[in-house]
């Protein structure tokens, strides 16, 4: 450790940003033998675009053929299937259906199916409205036609990146939170990054700053190849009984700018409706609008009439780091040992592991050697979905604290320790799901306030806005 508390020495790779992309990149480089530091400006990881998404593992059936996005989604999808059991990450093999409600949408289906086949997703199946409603009896009878994409799945948007980063850390990577990169210079051998906590040296810098990708490029290289245009998505999450209404992920026919409003279960047994696609300037505020949320409820009920009267458990809004370009902007700067992984707007959860492989391959071309670790550690994440055996079913759990999501005292204590211990209540929620259920903290806030007292940077009590 140096005087300012930062780890000293020259790292092989500095990854800027601990969203799902940064976490996956840190893992990949670590497994390829590099000494990695991850620099995150927020108090906790997953604080930007990775905080709020629809948690789908996409096949890439509707990605632009030949795009980098498609290649990364396919590689990311394949690797997730390969590693999820080893890391104890959940997977719900739900399948998806693309639904056409108008004549125009119906007419668009054959081309979308053709695109899917071009993209290597050969098992899409055309469905008449009747066939679709036999598979999903909850769908409104105004449906005109549909097609099925059997291998679109549901995942946990938070435990996946946590697992990626945890595996990196257990194999030697370092995480520095609350640390903003303000500038830096490359001397031909290594970068010296200036951060809010002091200097950090690394042979290669990877910009995975998501919503701040263009700003980080500007700060470090003096120019930006793209401009982030934040796109807000609001979501409504229904209580668990609503999950009976749809087994598949229900997708609309996409428009030019967005995949549209999705209705799907979550890996935790809820049902969500969203996201909207709202352009905005601010990169750090995702405001919820009661009118938009009400319209999402309405749209959900148009698709699944049985949703009327179902209880809402949660509402949230996320920002996607869209740019003026449709495709990802991943490129290396020759002569600067610098790679930007930018513009990864709405498919990052699916593509992250693929993006990481692509970035690592670029690095090899920049002369950063790969020495694959012979026997890396494989951490296992605690089971948080009913797919695995939950802690409340095991002896010594300390009793249930969060009754809605059945989170035990032991699970909370374990999440509060270790290299990825949360700094905020939001971080604790993403690691354990406390307060994420239907009561939203009515029953467990008092216990949580006591358990987290003086252990979070932003605690559950007090007035100061630490920002």
């Amino acid at each position: 450790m140096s005087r300012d508390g930062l780890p000293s020495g020259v790292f092989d790779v500095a990854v800027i940003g601990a969203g799902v992309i940064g976490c996956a990149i840190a893992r990949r480089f670590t497994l390829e033998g590099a000494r990695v530091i991850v620099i995150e400006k927020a108090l906790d990881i997953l604080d930007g675009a990775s905080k709020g998404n629809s948690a789908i593992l996409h096949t890439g059936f509707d990605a632009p053929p030949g795009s980098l996005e498609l290649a990364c989604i396919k590689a990311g999808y394949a690797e997730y299937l390969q590693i999820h059991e080893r890391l104890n990450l959940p997977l719900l093999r739900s399948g998806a259906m693309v639904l056409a409600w108008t004549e125009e949408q119906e007419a668009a289906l054959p081309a979308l199916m053709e695109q899917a086949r071009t993209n290597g997703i050969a098992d899409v199946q055309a469905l008449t409205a009747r066939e679709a409603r036999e598979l999903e009896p909850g769908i409104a009878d105004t449906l005109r036609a549909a097609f099925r994409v059997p291998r679109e799945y549901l995942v946990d948007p938070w435990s996946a990146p946590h697992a990626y980063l945890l595996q990196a850390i257990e194999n030697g990577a370092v995480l520095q939170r609350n640390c903003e990169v303000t500038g830096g210079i490359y001397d031909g051998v290594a970068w010296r990054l200036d951060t809010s906590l002091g200097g950090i040296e690394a042979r290669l810098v990877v910009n995975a700053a998501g919503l701040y990708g263009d700003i980080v490029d500007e700060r470090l290289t003096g120019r930006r190849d793209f401009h982030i245009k934040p796109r807000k998505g609001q979501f409504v999450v229904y209580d668990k009984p609503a999950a009976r209404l749809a087994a598949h992920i229900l997708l609309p026919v996409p428009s030019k700018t967005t995949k549209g409003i999705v209705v799907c279960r979550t890996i935790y047994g809820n049902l969500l409706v969203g996201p909207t696609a709202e352009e905005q300037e601010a990169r750090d505020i995702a405001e919820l609008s009661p009118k938009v949320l009400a319209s999402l409820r309405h749209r959900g009920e148009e698709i699944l009439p049985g949703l009327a009267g179902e209880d809402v458990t949660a509402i949230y809004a996320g920002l996607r780091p869209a740019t003026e370009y449709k495709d990802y902007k991943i490129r290396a700067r020759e002569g600067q040992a610098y790679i930007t992984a930018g513009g990864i707007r709405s498919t990052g959860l699916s593509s992250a592991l693929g993006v990481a492989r692509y970035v690592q391959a670029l690095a090899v071309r920049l002369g950063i050697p790969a020495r694959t670790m012979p026997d890396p550690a494989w951490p296992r994440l605690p089971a948080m979905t009913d797919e695995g055996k939950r802690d409340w079913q095991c002896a010594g759990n300390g009793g249930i604290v969060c009754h809605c999501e059945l989170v035990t005292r032991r699970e909370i204590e374990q999440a509060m320790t270790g290299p990825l211990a949360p700094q905020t209540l939001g971080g604790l929620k993403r690691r354990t799901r406390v307060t994420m259920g239907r009561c939203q903290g009515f029953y467990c806030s008092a216990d949580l306030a006591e358990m987290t007292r003086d252990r979070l940077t932003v605690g559950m009590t007090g007035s100061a806005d630490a920002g």
Partner: protein
Amino acid sequence: MPADLPDSCDVAIVGGGPAGLAAAVALRKQGIASVVVLEREPQAGGIPRHCGHFPFGMREFRRLLRGPDYAARLVARAVRSGADIRTSVTVTALNLGGRLSLSTPDGIAELKAKRVLLATGVREKSRAARLIGGEKPGGVLSTGALQGMIYLKGEKPFSRPVVLGTELVAFSSLLTCRHMGIRPVAMVEPAATVTARWPARLLPKLLRIPLMLGTELTAIHGKSRVTGVDLVGPDGKTRHVEADGVIVTGGFVPESSLLKASHLAVDPASGGPDIDQFGRCSDPAYFAAGNLLRAVETAGWSWAEGRRAGRTIAYDLKTGLLAPKPGLRVALHSSALKYALPQRIAYSANSPWSAKVLQFRVTRPVNGRLSLRLDGKTLWSKPFAALPERRITLPISMLPDGREGLAEFHIQEEAQ
């Protein structure tokens, strides 16, 4: 498997609040041998445990008590009666015929009960369920969470919150704030009038807290902690008010998660179980009492309901209640009617342990006539005036005996 937990019992009571504890005492007094109360919190007593203010206990103990003292007395009385109170035990599933799946600190277990009483109470409607806009900072709490933090843990979550709502519980939150030296900056109510009964509205005046009626809370601001809220008043204008917290009060809903995941019939109107005049659910091994039946009644009312449920179940075990049969099903034919209990009327009001009254609530202020129709014929019609969140009762003897079909309640409102 927890070593000392029985695997069977006469009656299992799910929830150790006023209704559940009253039922336990009543069952033991009637000589029922094994009565197990399953409480998921580390202490029994229910919501009153963290209502550190008056008035509790007049009906039950003939004296004025604070919530925690009242809860402690309820627990002590149940323990003295010989009921087996198990805390930190969560019921995870209600299965056919009274078989319960449990989670305990020692792992999972099963309990087979001859009868089960569901008394899981209520919770407040969350900020999310109300679709309140803005950001999601820390410091947005229900009254229940606020009281738990203050009275059980001594935590001070904020110092200048906005209070949303004017049900009785909102005034309880003002007293809770006062206890901790918290000064709410405003009390906000979307309706034009205060929801709680008359004397309550004097409290904000006494505490010098501005009461803003006809005002919506449309957005919450702040990143890590609340910095302010947007309020839209009767003039339609949005104004920003600085605050460091929001207390989202009332809007109670039955804590019916277990019920909804089970085989038991649920009444979408009340959000609680569908019951007959004995408080019996669609599976006759299950009964329900207290605020799980509906939102929301006082602790005293829930206690009385629990005591009655205990006596009814004891009678069922010893003598046998009348068997379930189709009778009248109560149907609400007005959006002004929120719910009615019990949902099924099959027995004469004079049958042993049969409920004597229907409980009603309205969704909005109503002034007009209430009528009952059966098979397309109006049986009676009477003047009806009611306010939301107030107790309304109707003698069950006003419904015809021995009939089957839908008992349709209609409201004809007088033009405003």
